[in-house]
């Protein structure tokens, strides 16, 4: 049942590596196999090191990764918020199969809750604001879902598209919500200044500890964005854990069954409407949380921060990475969030390159960069069948 148990015999066959290896010259199966075969302590140590590396990223200032034109910590935060959003949308789109084109609406509700009740209309504490934002967004997800989840497919996409725009336009036209000029002075997370952590400085291939360039742990200010990234990263790990728990339970199965065949699921005793609503609520929860964190880092929001384009980028992140695979959508979010920041020099070409990349991807990896286990297996079987039909089957 667990994904781990299923992998050994499905990912190790020579047919699989033959089928997938040459395509992009990269065989994830082999990597997963090698890591999986390691003894437990070594495996945990490796995972621990990797997590440490992720936390240390803004301090390492690795030349090829770092963004020349913008603060690297800020870029990392942006990428991390894309990752969090993608994880939330993955529950809606990847697991339950509901095409939500207005996901930015939840992001906006989370952000506006923090801004409106933290600055414009009231001055609540950050510790109250975040739960409040998440609560209101989840409620809004249920309110949106209750009438709209009765329609299917294309209609749901249209209704949610409208929802995203309605939220933005409401904010734009309501004085109480700051209207077009937006809201300033959004409260930042409370700081606890404990100690200074120095950054590295690279001279060629050698790294030197640079004692002049330090990050205060844990000071949420304007200049140094690394602490926001750490906060976001921690939230991501928590969400990842929750995602896994839900996925490997009755709830995850019910979502998948609903996606596969809603009528059959209903006739097998799955209250599909309830589970679709739950998926929507979970998605809204995570979307609202990332919106709230975004606002409390940004310090300033206006309706321009929540354009339709953002919804489309979110969906792109999920689809590019591989809807239904949580690691796939993380990679997708990194691609969508990081690459444009890294290659700012090509900014005017951004959309063109992005379109081309999508075309290439649709052609070569239609299931996403890291497709879910089901799509991989199905593809491997399809290819074996094709080979058999052509009479070119290997012995």
């Amino acid at each position, binding site marked *: 049942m667990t994904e781990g148990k299923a992998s050994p015999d499905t990912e190790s066959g020579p047919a699989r590596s033959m089928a997938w290896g040459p395509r992009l010259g990269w065989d994830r199966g082999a990597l997963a196999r090698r890591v999986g075969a390691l003894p437990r302590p070594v495996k945990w140590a490796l995972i621990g090191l990797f997590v440490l590396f992720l936390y240390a990223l803004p301090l390492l200032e690795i030349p090829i990764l770092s963004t020349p034109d913008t603060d690297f910590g800020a870029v990392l935060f942006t990428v991390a918020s894309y990752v969090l959003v993608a994880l939330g949308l993955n529950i809606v789109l990847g697991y339950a199969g509901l095409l939500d084109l207005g996901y930015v609406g939840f992001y906006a509700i989370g952000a506006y809750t923090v801004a409106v009740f933290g600055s414009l209309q009231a001055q609540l504490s950050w510790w109250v604001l975040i739960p409040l934002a998440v609560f209101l967004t989840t409620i809004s997800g249920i309110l949106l879902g209750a009438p709209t989840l009765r329609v299917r497919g294309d209609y749901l996409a249209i209704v949610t598209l409208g929802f995203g725009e309605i939220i933005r336009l409401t904010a734009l036209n309501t004085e109480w919500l700051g209207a077009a000029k937006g809201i300033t002075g959004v409260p930042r997370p409370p700081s606890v200044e404990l100690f200074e952590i120095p950054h590295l400085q690279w001279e060629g291939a050698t790294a030197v500890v640079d004692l002049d360039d330090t990050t205060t742990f844990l000071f949420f200010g304007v200049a140094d964005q690394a602490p926001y990234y750490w906060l976001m990263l921690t939230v991501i790990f928590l969400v990842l854990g929750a995602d896994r728990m839900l996925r490997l339970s*009755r709830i995850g199965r019910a979502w998948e069954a609903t996606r*596969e065949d809603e009528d059959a699921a209903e006739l097998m005793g799955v209250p599909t409407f309830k589970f679709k609503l739950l998926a929507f609520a979970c998605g809204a929860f995570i979307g609202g949380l990332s919106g709230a964190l975004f606002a409390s880092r940004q310090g300033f929001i206006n309706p321009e921060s929540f354009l339709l384009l953002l919804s489309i980028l979110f969906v792109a992140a999920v689809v590019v990475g591989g809807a239904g695979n949580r690691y796939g959508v993380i990679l997708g979010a990194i691609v969508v969030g990081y690459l444009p920041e890294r290659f700012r020099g090509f900014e005017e070409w951004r959309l063109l390159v992005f379109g081309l990349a999508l075309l290439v991807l649709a052609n070569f990896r239609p299931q996403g960069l890291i497709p879910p286990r089901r799509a991989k297996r199905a593809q491997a079987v399809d290819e074996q069948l094709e080979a058999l039909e052509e009479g070119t089957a290997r012995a």
Partner: protein
Amino acid sequence: MPSTSLEAQPASRNGTALLSLDDVSIQFGGLKALDGVSFDVREGEILGLIGPNGAGKTTCFNVMTGVYQPTSGEVRFAGEPLGKRKRFAITRLGIARTFQNIRLFGNMTALENVLVGADAHHRTNVIDALVRSPRHRREEREGEETAREVMKFLGLERRADELARNLSYGEQRRLEIARAMATKPRLLCLDEPAAGFNPAEKAQLMDLIRRIRDRGLTVLLIEHDMGLVMGVSDRVAVLEFGRKIAEGAPADVRNDPAVIAAYLGTEADDAEDFDQEGDL
């Protein structure tokens, strides 16, 4: 009508009515798909439901499982009217079904498909799943036990981790039965389970249906294959143009003039075996 006299005869395994259709009619626009149909499925029997294409057999299934609401009349299960119960609630009540066109969850494994069926009676909620509560762990364990037992019963235990869409046709048909049985039904409705089977597979299926009944389930069977229906059913009900034209023991129904005229007497008898499309 000969059917009325046959109806009174005791079946080979006489039980109380588990499912009753009472004067059920259903209308789609100008078309009467079912017209005053009444029959009982008795506890512990195998009832065959036959009729030419378009006679309303699958519509009958859809009324019983809550897919359609009858325009008039009533369906009762274990004495209780189904009323406006939702489809999943009817499944939990104890009616499970398979589909004429296979409708598995293709991108889930065979075991996961069956687990979805077993989940019909589970109560695990988000909190349970997040904290891995005792209820979650108990239900996961029980669900997997049920699923593996049912799959073993249907000879699918070695295919548990295969994706449903990658199973062979016959295995997919059996997996549908396994998924339905995992919901722990009292009444199992099989919609043309032998469609596309060769004679050897049909013989195995007959044996399987009997074994399902021997587990204590009541079976309602829609089938085109006369040999199979007549061979396995305790009683047979015949539909034509949305009306019930006969009901009784297979031998009696076979000799019923109305049935012969409608269905059996023609040479279509054998040709029906190859004709699976076009029904509702």
